[in-house]
Every structure is written in structure tokens, then in C-alpha cells.
């Protein structure tokens, strides 16, 4: 299949897809194209959002015909090579204190085994990786992060882990998810943070934006406990603007 492609979603949705596989470039194209659409604010377009490698548009079918929207999208797609586009501005870097392994994150060992690494190597690899919020999805504020190296391309477990807590860092298919709620998962629980991606009562209930970057810095259990006690929202995470 030759990308990008444009397809319909339901009666009033249009999907622009840059790849059928996750890559840094296809995700970057997705974020850049979404930003370009938001800046243009075409009449009739009601919502623009991104998934890992696609941009979704919801539109008013009475104001904008499918053919007309497709034509505008192809025109915008042809204006530049989106796989070479820079990331949009306004992104932030978050550094999040994280306990890898221990009883707080009991599946680090088996994930390391599956990746062919020792636990120390796994912590070194995951604890220094600077990953991007590829998309926010599934539940409010919940980030999908990556891409990690191919050694982390582990299949999802066939059995679900019945429950991981808020702030759990889980891993599969070269991605991390930082759980925003308590939920069951087929991904492996490798790290634990005090970071709450979604907190309704706070002024900014959804902390992260697609395109933000994160580093999960390894800390000891005692430091983790102290960070969590001092900062119940973000567990001691720091935040800085990424210069454009």
C-alpha cells in the first residue's frame, strides 16, 4: 500500500494515514499534519485528532462534502513531504522519577528476559530512553510513548494482568503506556511512577499532550516514596519547554 492514504470513518469522519507501522517519522508526520489542519481551521471541520500514525477529522457533512474535504486534504498533503516535517512547537519535556522492578513493578524481570537483557541493562535502556507521547488515547489523558528499540518489540501477554495502579509504566510492542487509571492490561508492568496523567479536580486535568517527551529516571524506593509524598499529582516530575 502506498502512503499516505485517505479513507472514511463512519458517516462524518475522514482518516489520513501515513503508515501501517509505527515509526518515529510517521508519528512525526501525523503530529505535524494535525497541527497544520488546526492552524487552517477549515469551515465545517469539527474536530481533529491523532492516533499513532493517522490524523482523524470529524466534519459537518451538511457544510462540507466528502469529495471536497478529500480534495483539500490531498492538496495539503502535496504541499510538503510530511515525513520530513519538523515537530510542532509548544512541546514539553517531562522527567519522571520511576522505580523499575521491585514489588512495585513486578514484571521488569520477565520483560528484560524476553528482550534478552539483564535487569540492570533493562533499567539502563528504559531509564535513559527519551520517548515521545505518540498519542493520547484509550482513556482520558493516557499517553502511548515511544518508539523504543526493536529489542522491546515484545508481544502483548495472552493473559491480562488483572489490575495495574495509576502511574504504572507498562511495556509492549516497542511502546510504553503510563496508566492514567487503574485498569487491567495485557502489557508488562516494568516501572511505577507517582505521575497522574489525569486528575479531574486539578486546573489542568490532562497533563500531557501528543508530541511531549518523557524520560523515566530510575530512583530508589525511598526517594520514590518521598517524591510521592511531596507531590501527589506528578510524583516529583519536572517539566520544561522544548525550544522550537
Amino acid at each position, binding site marked *: 500500500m502506498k502512503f499516505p492514504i485517505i479513507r472514511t470513518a463512519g458517516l462524518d469522519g475522514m482518516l489520513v494515514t501515513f503508515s501501517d507501522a509505527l515509526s518515529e517519522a510517521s508519528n512525526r508526520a501525523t503530529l505535524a499534519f494535525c497541527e497544520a489542519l488546526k492552524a487552517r481551521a477549515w469551515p465545517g471541520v469539527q474536530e481533529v485528532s491523532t492516533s499513532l500514525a493517522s490524523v482523524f477529522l470529524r466534519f459537518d457533512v451538511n457544510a462540507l462534502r466528502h469529495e471536497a474535504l478529500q480534495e483539500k486534504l490531498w492538496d495539503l498533503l502535496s504541499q510538503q513531504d510530511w515525513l520530513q516535517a519538523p515537530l510542532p512547537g509548544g512541546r514539553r519535556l517531562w522527567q519522571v522519577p520511576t522505580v523499575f522492578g521491585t514489588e512495585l513493578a513486578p514484571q521488569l524481570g520477565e520483560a528484560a528476559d524476553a528482550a534478552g537483557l539483564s535487569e540492570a541493562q533493562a533499567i539502563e535502556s528504559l531509564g535513559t530512553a527519551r520517548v515521545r507521547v505518540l498519542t493520547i488515547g484509550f482513556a482520558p489523558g493516557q499517553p502511548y510513548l515511544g518508539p523504543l528499540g526493536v529489542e522491546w518489540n515484545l508481544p502483548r501477554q495472552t493473559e491480562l494482568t488483572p489490575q495495574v495502579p495509576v502511574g504504572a509504566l507498562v511495556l509492549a510492542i516497542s511502546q510504553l503506556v503510563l496508566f492514567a487509571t487503574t485498569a487491567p492490561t495485557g502489557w508488562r508492568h516494568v516501572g511505577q511512577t507517582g505521575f497522574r496523567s489525569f486528575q479531574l479536580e486539578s486546573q489542568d486535568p*490532562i497533563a500531557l499532550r501528543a508530541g511531549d517527551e518523557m524520560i523515566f529516571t530510575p530512583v530508589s524506593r525511598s526517594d520514590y516514596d518521598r517524591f510521592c509524598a511531596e507531590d501527589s499529582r506528578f510524583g516529583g516530575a519536572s517539566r520544561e519547554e522544548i525550544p522550537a
Partner: protein
Amino acid sequence: MSALKVLRIGPLVSIQDQGRPGQLQQGVSRGGAADLLALAEGAALLRQSADLAALEMAGMGGLFEATGPLRIALTGAPMQVCLDGEFLAWNASHQMQAGQRLEIGAARRGVYGYLHLGGGIDSAVMLGARAAHLMSGLGRTVAVDDLLPCGQDQGGETGLGLSAEDRFQGGDLRIVAGFQSDLFAKKVRERFAERDFRRGSRANRMGVELVSDGAGFAAEGQLNILSEIIVPGDVQMTGDGKPFVLLREAQTTGGYPRIGTVLPCDLPRVAQAQAGTELRFDWVTLEEGLALQARYDAQVKSIPGRCMPLLRDPALMQDLLAYQLISGAVSADTDPFA
């Protein structure tokens, strides 16, 4: 301001409105009432906006006491209902006085019944809406001792009735192809539309399981596709090729392939199907789908004009559903959209 005090309540009752469209980028699916037509009907019966919040009652209602005079309307799945022991008409608006008790029982057909208040339910706004989004922990189900406060009621007549569309008995669901339909072989898609389905036992505000006899409907390369955006009505095939129709509270993205999307106008029929109800799929083209939806939207716009005074005193009637609400014209069981 008047309110309804909750004295007894079914297990799955929540405040719902039009939900939160426009927040997919933050991972928030739109949610809102499972049967949006019922919101339009309730708003029409009370001569107010369909954006106001109402009480959605899955399968079972509750017992409520008015703290002051207030107007109510009842729509969606018809439920047994009494005001201080007197039967009330469903699909109608009524007046309550302070201290009066409203008792709403089990759904006789369908799943989701709705209790609307004049002025709407003035509960806290969360992320731009009052709707509980149970899957994401936004809001919660209604509990005993909760107070449901009325918003500013513009006032107006009560005792209006409506011949509502019967969407409680399953039937044909019109479905359009979408961005993953071609992951399914043409023969599989054809077979899908020939199959008689029944609503399965797994169903909630996120989605509804369909079961049938015979082989499943697997996609090619089912487990390797990238997680992708979900739109309400998407028919997702799980690993064993069993379809789930996803509703408005489904997660925002999903990794199971979708064979197509049920038209928005047929989603109340999905949400309101009780377990075992028969459902079938009928492929339509995008153009046909748009035309069907436009016709339906026009019908919804006409609902306020179709609300008529109840001809008989509802307090004197044992079961108004057995009567014709509007003499000689239509009965409550007639499908005005047919």
C-alpha cells in the same frame, strides 16, 4: 430550586447529556446518553433544550421524592411508573408537587429509560459536560440520598404526550464500510449481512456483544494492525471473530479491526436491544447512509411539533401504553419512521 431526592435506585443509573464531542485528542470519547433520541424526545416534551442533562436508567429506575414543584418527562425504554401510586404515561410530561413520590420500575421493553427534569439536572460540569463517563471514572452512578437539582426551568405546560419511535425490538442495522472494512474478504462481509444475530449477554455503555450460530468473521492479519481511532457505531471483531457494536462511551482507540460502522440513526436500536433481541446488518453505501441519516435528523427536528396534549387524564389510566395517545392517528407502538 426544586430537586429530586433519591430514595431507592437501580444499579446502573447515571446522569447523561450529549457528552463530550471534540476531546478525542485528550483521550476522552464523547460518551453521553446511550439513546440520544430519548434526550430529544424528553427535551421536546418539556419544551426545552436537548443539551440539558437527564437521568439514564439501565433496566431499572428507582424511587424519587420531589423537594418542590417540578416538571418531569419520561422517555426511552418504557418502564412501569407511578406518581404517589397512580400510573403515569410514558413518553409524556407531568407535574410533580413537593413531597410527591415517583416510582420507576423495570423496563418492559428496551434497556435505557430516561427521566428528564424541567430545567435539566443541574449537576457539576466535568470536562465540559455533566454526563457520567463510567469507563474513565468521570462521575459515578447515582446512589441513594443523592439530590438531583433542577436547573432554571423556563416553565411551561405538562401533560404532553408523544408517539415515540419504537427502537426496542432490534431489527435491521444499516452499516457503511470504513477504513478497515477491506481487511475483511468480500465473502466475509457478505456473509456478515446474511447472518441472524442476537444481542449477547455482554453489553454496557461502551459496547454491545452480538452472538450467532456458525463461523465467526475474522479479518486477515487480525492481530497485527496498529491501534486506530474508534467512532461510535464501529463494529469491532474480537480475536474469535465475534462482533461488538461500539457505542459512544467506547475507548477512543482500539486494536481490533472494524468491519464497518452502524449509522448514528440506528444506534438507539443497538443500545436499546435487550439480551436475545434479534439484529441483522444491512450494508448501505456512504451516499445512502448520508441520505438515511439526513431523513432521520429531519424527523428528530419535527419531534417538538408532534408532542400533543394527552387526551385522557393520565392519573386515571391504568396503562397508557395500551391506549392510543393521539386519537385515531397513531399508537405508541407505531413506528413513525417506517
